[in-house]
Every structure is written in structure tokens, then in C-alpha cells.
């Protein structure tokens, strides 16, 4: 085996290496470290609760919301009905649980669409530069001119309303967002010397993108994904509020608010329950994003390293 190795004489001068900072070794120790950040701790807890609520609602809700029990209608919050009931006597807490599933899945899929199309396009633009970069970025500009609501309006005018429209409309808007963020961050990494070193080692652009670019922008993409997720929740609520999103019999937070509007004078709890659910979810996601940014920001890392 010796023949394959460098075979240089071993120098007797050994430089002692003193470890300056200890890098986190496992996911769990990273998590413990991250929980010291208040934003992250609150954000991850709230987000986890909402996700849990959405998952549980698949198999169980406190009340069956497809059954109308008129005698129980328009009750205020109580121990039997945590958030009260609506004008058909349905349990608002159960409806919020059901709605969370719809809101979260629409926002999540839309983020997925943005990630899976936008990130490769952004990487491509940064790696190739030149006319391809120009074309992709001008294309992003055009799509930016269509806020999710406008796309949803056009799609609905042709195909009629539905939750799929909301996913497509929000997803389309997410594509240029991710493409731009990815391109900007990737371009900055491409300027670094370790990319030159990798090129000097004969690595191709695609291999450099996978080995060097993506690992270094992953943090940023995760943060952006949480932001787009929270914006998606808000957008979905807006779309289904005006009737461009989820349709009966399925429910969503936006639809609940649309129904609440006419009852505002006599049953404000109908607007409060879904509204607070939206705010809590969006707040949780935003805090999570802020926390992640603080934890992974190289600047704060540097500050920690240099005291």
C-alpha cells in the first residue's frame, strides 16, 4: 500500500492543533444548542403543536364537524367547546383543527413547488451565468408581476374554484422567490476561493454545485422556506376567504373567516378562533425562521468565535 501513498519523508516537526470551538456532533446536540435561542425554542414549539393538531385531525377531532347541531349554535367559549360554536352548532375548535390540515398542506405543497423548481433554476443561473442567467432572471421578474391572488383569479376564471388553484397560484409565486434567493447566495459562494480550488481539482460545475454550493446555501434555503411557508398560510387564508381556495364541504381558516363575517355582530368568536390560529401559526413559523437564521448566520458564528 505504501506505493500508492505520497511517499514523502515524514517531517519530525509536528504542529499541535488546538481546537478553538467544538462543532456540534449530532443532530440532538445541535437541537439542544439551538433551543438556547428563544425565538427558535418558541417557534419550533408552536409549529410542532400546529403540525400535531393537523395530523391528529386526520383521525380524530373532539366533535364531528359534518353534523349540524342547531340547539348548540352560537355558544361562547366554554370547557365543552373550547372556542365556542358557529351558527350551525359546529365546534369551532374541531373546525380549526380540520382547517389547519388544509391550510398547512396547501402552504407546504406550495413551498415544495417553489423549492423543487426554483432552487435548481437558481443554481443553474448562478453556475452558467451569461444569457441563460439573464433569461431565467427576467423570467423571474415576469412571474413576480403575478401575485398569488392574480394567478388564482385567472385559474379560477377558467377552471372554477378549488384548493388546487390555491396551491398552483402560491406555488408559482414561490418559484421566482426561491430562484432569486438561490441564485444570489450561490453567486456569492461561486466567488469564494474554495470554488477556484475545486475547479483547479478538475471538478465540473454540476459537481461543484452539489458538493460545495448547496451545502453552503442550505441554511438560507431552510430559513426562506419557513418564511414562504408562513406567507403561504396567509395567502391561502386570503384566497379561501374570497372564495378562490378551499370549497365546501372541506373547511379552512380563510373559509371560516368568510362565514364569520356575516355573524360578526352576534358571534365574534367565529372570527377570533380561526384568526388566532392563523396568527399563532404564522408567528410560530416566523420565529422559527428568525431563530434558525440567528443560529446558522456565519456572522454570529464569527462573533462567537472571536469573542
Amino acid at each position, binding site marked *: 500500500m505504501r506505493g500508492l501513498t505520497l511517499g514523502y519523508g515524514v*517531517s519530525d516537526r509536528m504542529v499541535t*492543533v488546538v481546537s478553538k470551538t467544538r462543532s456540534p456532533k449530532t443532530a440532538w446536540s445541535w437541537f439542544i444548542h439551538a433551543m438556547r435561542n428563544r425565538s427558535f425554542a418558541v417557534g419550533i414549539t408552536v409549529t410542532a403543536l400546529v403540525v400535531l393538531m393537523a395530523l391528529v385531525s386526520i383521525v380524530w377531532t373532539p366533535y364531528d364537524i359534518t353534523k349540524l347541531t342547531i340547539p348548540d349554535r352560537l355558544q361562547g367559549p366554554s370547557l365543552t367547546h373550547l372556542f365556542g360554536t358557529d351558527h350551525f352548532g359546529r365546534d369551532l375548535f374541531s373546525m380549526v383543527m380540520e382547517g389547519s390540515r388544509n391550510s398547512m398542506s396547501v402552504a407546504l405543497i406550495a413551498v415544495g413547488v417553489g423549492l423543487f423548481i426554483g432552487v435548481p433554476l437558481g443554481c443553474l443561473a448562478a453556475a452558467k451565468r451569461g444569457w441563460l442567467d439573464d433569461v431565467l432572471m427576467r423570467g423571474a421578474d415576469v412571474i413576480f408581476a403575478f401575485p398569488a391572488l392574480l394567478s388564482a383569479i385567472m385559474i379560477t376564471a377558467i377552471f372554477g374554484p378549488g384548493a388546487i388553484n390555491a396551491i398552483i397560484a402560491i406555488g408559482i409565486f414561490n418559484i421566482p422567490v426561491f430562484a432569486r434567493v438561490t441564485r444570489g447566495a450561490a453567486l456569492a459562494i461561486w466567488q469564494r476561493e474554495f470554488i477556484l480550488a475545486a475547479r483547479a481539482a478538475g471538478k465540473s460545475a454540476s459537481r461543484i454545485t452539489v458538493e460545495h454550493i448547496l451545502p453552503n446555501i442550505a441554511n438560507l434555503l431552510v430559513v426562506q422556506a419557513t418564511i414562504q411557508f408562513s406567507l403561504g398560510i396567509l395567502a391561502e387564508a386570503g384566497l379561501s376567504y374570497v372564495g378562490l381556495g378551499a370549497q365546501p364541504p372541506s373547511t379552512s381558516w380563510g373559509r371560516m373567516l368568510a362565514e364569520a363575517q356575516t355573524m360578526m355582530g352576534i358571534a365574534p368568536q367565529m372570527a377570533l378562533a380561526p384568526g388566532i390560529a392563523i396568527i399563532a401559526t404564522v408567528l410560530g413559523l416566523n420565529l422559527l425562521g428568525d431563530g434558525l437564521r440567528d443560529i446558522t448566520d*456565519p456572522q454570529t458564528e464569527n462573533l462567537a468565535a472571536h469573542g
Partner: protein
Amino acid sequence: MADPLLQVKSLSVAFGGRSVLCGFDLDLAPGEIHGLVGESGSGKSITALSVMRLLPRNAIMAGNIILSGQKLERLGEEHLNAIRGDQMAMIFQEPMTALNPVQTIGDQIAEGIRLHRDVSPAEALDMAARAMARVELPPSRYPLSRYPHELSGGQRQRVMIAMATALKPKLLIADEPTTALDVVLQAQVLKLLRTVVDDTGMALLLISHDLGVVAEMADSLTILQSGQIREQGNAVSILRHRKHAYTRQLAEASTHVPQWKNRGQQASGNALVSIKNLVKTYRSKRTLLPNSPEDFTAVDDVSFDIATGRSVGLVGQSGCGKSTLARLILALDTPTGGAVQIDGIDLGTADQSQLRRARRRMQVVFQDPYGSFNPRMRVEKIIAEPLHLLNRKTTLDQQREMIADALRCVSLSPDVMRRYPHEFSGGQRQRIAIARAIITKPKLIVCDEPVSALDVSIRAEILDLFAELNDEHGMACLFITHDLAVARAITQETLVMHRGKIVERGPTAQIMDSPQSEQAQKLVAAAPNLERALKKRLGQ
């Protein structure tokens, strides 16, 4: 001795319980130039910021700072603002970022004038124009309405000096004012500072890591290490006697020449690298719009050979095209014209497998030991990166053995493989970069300013390592540098580059001792040199 202008008494600074400066004393007389020398982390910049009272909020400061009888440590912000810029001023290291990018240079100079003098905006601009003329930027050629991005680094540093000296403060603090500039610009800026001090009688606190710079300028000197004064007093006598071990270490490191066994004797006549009529022109984008910028020729008809096993220096001012030339040799960029041959392979016509072969024979080491590694990769993977250029398949064990060998070769223990780059110091990182470069046993290493970001003592160790690679393993090296001391220490041959052309080539010693071309003479004359400066001052 007259009353000191500035008196610093037992100044200590700590950040979050960590002491960075401890018991610092200094007396500075009007018209005196005091050199403050230390390596990174010695506390020299902290000293400057303490005197200006510009320390970050989380710093804790103790001690006295007395400027013309005023106890600065007791003054409030408002009072300090009246003194800053008027009685004391400061110049920073990085001219590219120290000026506000969205304000004209005239407005930036005039702002300070109007803060401290009761003058009209027109009068302030007038004074700004005079300050500009003093730093040899006559407003007829460099109008006050320019923005910082329209000026070069050297010009920006002059603007900084104009701004700091517009009101003729009694104390000027210059924190590494020339570190970001090449040697020729450095010499110009230092000369300018000297002239300003002589003309106005202000005191100058000159902070530097370079004993050579300080030796030429300073009347008195402080050597600082880890926040503590090692030596203080008359500059010439400190530099001549070098009583303290650390002073000696600094002085020796800055004039360090590695021990050679063969010194290029084993170099054969074969041309390892052969460059013929190489041209690289950056074309401006052609548009229909007027005022499209002109083409820029970075490398202009360059031809030379590097023999197997030779160590060659490529020196020149910043912007002369030396880094572009390096990129062309490394096949990281395609030339506009001419040819590069590596070990008989023409990079212009090579197919993929020939290109791989060529890449295997040449590797690269960059300047910035912080930017040249992917921070998310372990050392093991970083060093192994060029291994895929090898044709034969290697097992993981074999790879690991090769990495361990490369690490030992740069005097690092193979145990460091599993670590991440941020766990290492600058010098150690540069060793890792060298390990990465030598793992494919290349015949040529191209080094782009490989030691200019390092402290002098570490610089010496890295130069030794390069010398060893060249001397014992016969690797040819191309050193790109603006620092003649580096070229003198480890190269046998030197090429002088100016505006894209090679203007002089020859044995290094010959170029250093009797440069022929104007550019080479300029570079040699500008290079700070401790021994030469001492000799000159002792002769006075």
C-alpha cells in the same frame, strides 16, 4: 521634554471578562511619530479605538487617556464628538469600505469641517478642496463630486488622509493604513503621511504589523504582544539592540530566509510550463447604447518558461495582471490568444483526459486561508478533493493513507482529518491548503500571495515549508506576490509584470540588487526593508 500631547496611563480593555489589553502606557509629544507594532490579536487596534473612545459597546475600559490636558475617559459623548475629527483623527486599514459609498468625497470631507468650524457649505468645500490638494489629489483632476467607487484603493486612502487631516488635528492615528495596498502605493502613502506630519507638526500613532514600515517612519516604538507591552522606547535603539526575545523573533521573521540544501540545483533544463504569446482581453459587453467601456487587456503578449523544479516569483503591483495570468496557467480561464503548455500538454487543444492529466500536475494555493476551504467539509474531504484526478481507483483506506501522508508532509498530525477548517489558525489552514495542493504529487504549485494574509512569524514557517517542497521534492513553484521579501526568500528566478506585460526577468538576486526596468526599480525601492531602513537611519 515638552508636555506630552497624548498620555495614556495603565490602559486596560476587556471583552466579556477576556482581557485584550493590559496596563498600556504611552507618552506622545507633538510632531512625534510613534510606531505600535504587533501581530493580529496583540491589541494594537484596540489601543487606537480606546484613544478615540470608539470601542464597541461591550468593551470594558480602565485607565487614563489624556489629550492636551483633557481626560478623555471622563468625557461624555457630546464632548468627545467635539474633539474627534478636530483635535484627533483616525485613518483605517480598509480604504475600500471606510468611505460612505453613497456620498461624494467632497461632502464627506466637508462634513467634518462643518461639524467643527463655523463655516458656510461653500467655504467647507473650499477647505475640502485644499485638503485634497495636500494629498496630491488636485480637485482639477479629481473633482469633489466623485463617489468613492470611482477611485482606486490608493486614491481612497488619500481621501481618508485628506479627511482626517483637513482640520490639522494635533493627533493622527493610522491603523495599518497601507496593509491593503501594494508596495508602491504603500511607499507613496507613507511618504504622504510623513509630509503631512512634517508640515503640520501633528503627532502620528502609526500602527503596523510590519517592522520594516515602522523602521522607516517611527521616532519611538512600542512592541505589543497579547495585549502587553514587550518593549517601548527609541525606535532605532530598540530595532538595533532587540533586547526582548519577541522583538528579535519579529525582526528575524520579517527578514527570514529558509535554509536551502540544493536551491534549485536539481532543476533540469526541461520546460515544465511553457507560455507563448499569451493574451487575455476582457471584452466589454457590446450594446447599442453609447459609452460602452473599452476592452481591457489584462495579460498582453506574455511568453516565458518555467523549468522543472524551479521556483519562480511573479511580482508586480496590484492590477498588473498577475492573478489573471495564474488563472490562465491553471486552466481556470481561457486565453484570448497564445498558448499554455503544461508538461507537454497544450491546454488550449487538450481533450478531457489530457486536461485531467495536466491538472494533476499543477495545483494551487490561495492567499486567504479563511476563504479557501468549504466551511462545511472536514479536513479529510478538503484534502482529498484533487484525488479524483487520479486515473486509478483508490480504496478508502488508500485514500486515507494518502491524506495522512500529505498532512505529515506539511507537519500536521493525521489526527486532524475529522476536524472542520474553522477549528484551525491561519497558519494551520495554509498548511492544510498546501496538503491539498500536494496530494496528487504535482510538478507545479501556483501560489497566489500565499503568505500575505499571515502574521510575520507564521509567514516564516510557511515559507520554510514551500522551500522544503521545492528543495527536497523538486516541485516547481510559481509565487505570485507584491512582496519582494517573499520573492527574495524563496525564488530563484523573478518575473516583473507591469500592465499585462513581463517587463523584466532574471535571477532573483540580480533583480533585487540591480533592477533594470523602471517598474522593477520602483518595486525594489518601495519595498519596506528593516535592515536598509536601519542602516539609513544610523547613518544620519
